[in-house]
């Protein structure tokens, strides 16, 4: 069942097109947004989170249209948003910050609010840092605190912009467990550059380029975009091919079969790179 519908969404920053007539429908579960820098992922998330008004088109979430002031506020009551820069007040303690955000989320009952703060701190593994000032938290802890503020009030729609930045492998594993659990009942939309996160978390992935969705399907389907175009070889291929040396010392090539190349199983990253076309491939080759 669709919970978020985007129709003909457009947004420009001067002469730069951030979103170009984008259509998308999202339902309950975890949806990943992949795309190079400047593809329009953050702009899309900001429009969905009601932080930014689109130039044209329509967004609808849970039957609410953020273009209408009353519905926008109603939608804000049902969403949790973790922006790229969560903007946490450095002089607040972690618990005080969450308590403040909880008040801004209209949790007026102090006892319930305290319980909710304890809950989200536990969810992100920051219970023992509750009284530590934000400025004294590490980057990963701040990212988790940002996630905690998004989780306050158990929102129906969770919008996370690069949530795994700064997380160590253990924290990332905890994060994946948390998000996948939330995705069972809620709509979670996250943007990331980590294709592993997409593979591990998302039932659905949308790849964006130049403000448009160039792929919308399953992570497996994204990997299949590179089917028959991934090769392993002992020697570096020549010609205009995209390749890199993997941990086993073999050369992994995308595109035409190199001499002595044996076919390899494509990954999500392979599919993503193939999908983004020759300009990215050329960039990799140039490096």
């Amino acid at each position, binding site marked *: 069942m669709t*919970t978020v519908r985007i129709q003909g969404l457009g947004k420009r920053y001067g002469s730069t097109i951030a979103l170009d007539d984008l259509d998308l429908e999202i339902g309950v579960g975890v949806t990943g947004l992949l795309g190079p820098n400047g593809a329009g992922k953050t702009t899309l998330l900001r429009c969905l989170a*009601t932080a930014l008004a689109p130039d044209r088109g329509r967004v609808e979430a849970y039957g609410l249209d953020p273009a209408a002031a009353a519905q926008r506020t109603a939608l804000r009551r049902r969403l949790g948003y973790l922006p790229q820069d969560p*903007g946490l007040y450095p002089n607040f303690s972690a618990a005080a910050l969450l308590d*403040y955000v909880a*008040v*801004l989320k209209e949790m007026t009952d102090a006892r319930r609010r305290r319980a909710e703060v304890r809950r989200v701190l536990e969810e992100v593994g920051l219970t023992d840092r509750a009284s530590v000032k934000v400025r004294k938290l590490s980057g990963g802890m701040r990212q988790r605190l940002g996630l905690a503020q998004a989780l306050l009030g158990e929102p129906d729609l969770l919008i996370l912009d690069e949530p795994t930045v700064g997380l160590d492998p253990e924290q990332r594993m905890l994060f994946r467990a948390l998000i996948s659990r939330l995705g069972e009942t809620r709509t979670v939309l996250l943007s990331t550059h980590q294709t592993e996160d997409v593979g591990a978390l998302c039932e659905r992935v949308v790849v964006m380029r130049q403000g448009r969705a160039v792929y919308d399907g399953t992570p497996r389907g994204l990997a299949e975009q590179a089917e028959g175009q991934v090769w392993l070889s002992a020697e570096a291929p020549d010609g205009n091919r995209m390749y890199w040396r993997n941990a086993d010392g073999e050369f992994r090539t995308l595109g035409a079969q190199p001499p002595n190349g044996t076919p390899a199983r494509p990954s999500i990253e392979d599919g993503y790179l193939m999908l983004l076309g020759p300009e990215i491939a050329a960039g990799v080759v140039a490096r």
Partner: protein
Amino acid sequence: MTAMLSEPAPAVTPARVATTSLALKEARLLLGTSTLWLGVGLAVALCTAWGWTTEPRWDTFTANSGMASLVLAGFLVLIGHLAASRDHRHGATDSARTLPASTRRRTVALLALIPTAAAAAALAVGAELVLLMPAWPAGAFDPWLLTAAVVIPMVGAGLGVAVGSWLPSTPSGPLTLFGVAAVLALLPVLGSSAGALSWLLFPVVIDENVAPEIPRPTGWHLVYLIALLVVVTAVAVLRYWRLVAAVAVVLAVVVAVVAVRRQQAERLPITPDTVAAYLDESAQQCEVRGSVTYCALHGYGRWISLWQGAVEPIVRALPPNVTNLPVVRQGSGPATSVVVDQHWGRHGTWARDSRLDLSAEYIRVLLDMPEQLAGKPGPGSLPERNRAVLPKGSMELSTGPRCSGAGQLRTVMALWLLAQSDTDGRALLGDREKLRFGRVDFGQAEIEAARRLLDAPRGRVEALLNEKWALLRSPAPAGDALAAFGVAELPVSSGGSACQ
């Protein structure tokens, strides 16, 4: 196209409840700000320091407390600005914008800083009063002026929120504070008399109260401050209620102008003639302690004990048959009275200096020595003696020509009497700065003679006082009256310079 899931919306918190909850949160955040308590502590410390050297009076206390509140208001300008610009400073604009609490609600909630500032200011004023203990301000209590000390920090908090709402960049707060401080510092430069417009625009009434019962339009000053508070509050919410806030600003400015005009109109011109009735005997309440009458202005009854401490040691040394002792009067009085003003030192040397000044003045009147002032009918009769009634432009009253009390018996006895009023009379006689009786000059010979008297048994000196009392109240030379104490005849000043 698939069907859109449209679940029922969760229960919505009523806007008023949500705003109140946020306002309470903002108030608690302010109360948890160490900068606020630093400001409160500094305000209390400054007020206490400024009033440390003098016995407290309501007019000086409210002026000191008001100035200290101005310092606290400065802190609140910064705190209010930081609170209102919180999101902009930390890049939280995006996440804050996506929360159900609108910027309007957040700004309205920030107005909770204003009553919280009032509570902090009231606490500071209370602490300033407690720190006066065991003393307590004398004079006329003016509730409007005390309230002003609470309202000024409210204006500061409101100004901080208003500036933070419109100009959230970090430098705006300090720059606003600097600008306001510069304007306030300029006001006294633009006009220094108590009734000047620039002084009336100054948030604190710092001119001295000439007499406790003189009517002062301080209520209008409070109205002016409240109008300022309305202006800054309305500016803070102008973005959300344009018409109402704009009307409120206009009305408040009109009220402020009217309040200042009323102050100008109702302020009594301070001249010796206009204030005489508020300082003369009809305005004083008298009380007899021992054999001396003390008359205090309204609210100064507690100071009688202080005056008594200066006068009593002298009276105790006088012959029992001496009657018609000078009356100690606060304000103004007839020539035979000793006039004190509304200043009295507190703590250590400041208290001692006030006590010695009164002792010396009491001795001067008692022994009919010429007073300090020139060309006036008699000692202690002038309302101008109250420093706040000095004629416009003059820093102090003119003094008459000095005269010589050298060789006069009363000069020696005055010095001995003064030595009685201090715990270490001998040391006092070594401090020329403290030995002053009106316009009377004297030399080391008279001081040495007084020392000889101090060395003698007190009973012998008191007997001399008894015997020579009539002579003591005249400029008669000592002659051989002190020979029994080992004092040779003192050289007398010749010519017209001798004191009469």
